[in-house]
């Protein structure tokens, strides 16, 4: 007996088809963005060799010289400082939450940390200008015996570190919780202390996953614009210390796009900067996802 398709089933099929299309559209979007940026940056890629673009720090748009090195170094320094600050703090936090805190504390703190991820980055920027920048100017720089306006890589790094806390803590906490309780018991049972167990067993088992969490954090840090731009000083020079100002790539794009467009090749240069950012972030994201998938398979 042939049953006519019920409205229920039609809806079901349509829903799944629509979702499929939307998913494909999202994937296609990334592809089109990469293609579009590449297309737009072709003029600058044609005008000078890659080595000149990436390894020269001469940034004189009026003379047609576009050396990205200062900006690349600015991004690397700020990201590096942020990671150096964030990783130990996040590790200790997630170890505490996973291994020492009872489940009540854990269930309370987890959402609070995730809320941190939802705060608009301008807010972090303002906080950085009001608190971090003066602190560096009045305390850190005199202590180090140098002059600084406070607008520096360190300021950017601190603000950025706080912004990537949630993702690193969240992911590494999940990894630590995925380590089976029995593995801990096996270590405790031979007379190891809790800390020895964490150090020799839990951490070792969780290491690749934690690495993935950090890579994910880095990729967040890499592209973060607003908050960093507000505190980092934006001076296009290769920095030599964390108290120097810097000019990261995202800030370059945000500050200049739409303003200096009369200069030939300028918009193409900015598109190239955007392309670099996008590719690096995609790469790091893919890398961390790959590690995470492998970890989840192997941890049990």
């Amino acid at each position, binding site marked *: 007996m042939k049953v006519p398709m019920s409205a229920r089933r039609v809806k079901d099929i349509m829903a799944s088809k629509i979702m499929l299309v939307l998913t494909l559209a999202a994937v296609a979007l990334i592809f089109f963005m990469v293609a579009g940026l590449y297309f737009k940056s072709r003029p600058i890629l044609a005008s000078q060799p890659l080595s000149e673009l990436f390894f020269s720090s001469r940034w004189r748009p009026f003379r047609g010289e576009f050396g990205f090195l200062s900006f690349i170094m600015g991004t690397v320094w700020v990201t590096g400082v942020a990671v150096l600050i964030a990783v130990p703090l996040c590790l200790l936090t997630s170890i505490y939450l996973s291994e020492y805190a009872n*489940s009540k504390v854990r269930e309370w703190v987890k959402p609070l940390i995730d809320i941190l991820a939802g705060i608009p980055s301008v807010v972090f920027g303002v906080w950085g200008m009001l608190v971090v920048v003066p602190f560096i100017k009045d305390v850190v720089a005199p202590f180090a015996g140098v002059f600084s306006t406070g607008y520096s890589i360190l300021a950017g790094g601190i603000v950025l570190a706080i912004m990537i806390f949630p993702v690193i803590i969240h992911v590494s906490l999940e990894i630590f919780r995925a380590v089976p309780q029995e*593995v*801990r*018991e*096996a270590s*405790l049972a*031979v*007379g190891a202390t809790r800390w020895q167990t964490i150090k020799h067993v839990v951490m070792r088992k969780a290491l690749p996953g934690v690495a993935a969490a950090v890579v994910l954090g880095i990729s967040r840090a890499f592209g973060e614009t607003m908050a960093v731009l507000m505190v980092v000083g934006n001076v296009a020079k290769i920095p030599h210390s964390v108290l120097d100002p810097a000019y990261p790539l995202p800030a370059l794009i945000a500050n200049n796009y739409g303003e200096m467009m009369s200069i030939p090749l300028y918009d193409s240069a900015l598109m190239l900067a955007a392309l670099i950012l996008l590719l690096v972030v995609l790469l790091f994201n893919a890398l961390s996802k790959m590690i995470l998938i492998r970890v989840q398979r192997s941890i049990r």
Partner: protein
Amino acid sequence: MDYQTHISVQNLNVHYGNQQVLKNITLNIPDRKITAIIGPSGCGKTTLLKSFNRLIDSVEGVKISGRVLVDDENILDPKTEVTHIRKKMGLLLQKPYPLPMSIYDNVAYGPRIHGIKNKKRLDEIVERFLKKASLWDEVKERINQPASMLSVGQQQRLCLARGLAVEPEIILGDEPTSALDPQSSQRIEQTFVELKQDYTIVIVTHILRQARRMADYVVFLYLGELIEHGPAWDIFNHPKQALTREYIKGLIS
């Protein structure tokens, strides 16, 4: 005073939250024998075993009262330092959980924790206890490979060697053969029988035939209560309690 066994349990009560899991257990575990804890699922066998080395400490919301004497020391006393208690007991779990390191490092883990650094001594210890767990011949060529590459049965023997390497007097096993194939189970059983000359062994098992094969002494738990305990032969042939009789006949499980 009469003779005190290695492990002596006196009026032990354990609660998880509001649920009482062990009810007033009093029991002496005989030395240098194999004691089997039997009983239906959920009756508190694992809980009893883990209160011997205080691994239930890590369960949230657990409340314990009573005394567990190990060598005349009440290990439930909060002042008792727990790592040296645990060092006295090797533990085998239902499934083998090798530590994420090489075969060698697994066995050397405990001794290293307790301060042995001398490479030669560690080599010696590793070889001795892998032999004792009858694993040496199978792994001596690849002692530095990750422990996860061993078969499940080999892993369980590795875990035994890891437990033995801190020179405990007692071996605890929580259904140590339940994840193993019949042949590997048999090897573990054999090893246990060999080891009982030197160690006090307590195993949890839900396989009655295994208890019959191995046990010298049997403890029967039911819903958290100690129903009956005594020499294996008596329990299996002349159980005093009706419940024990029914369980042994396989009427309750």
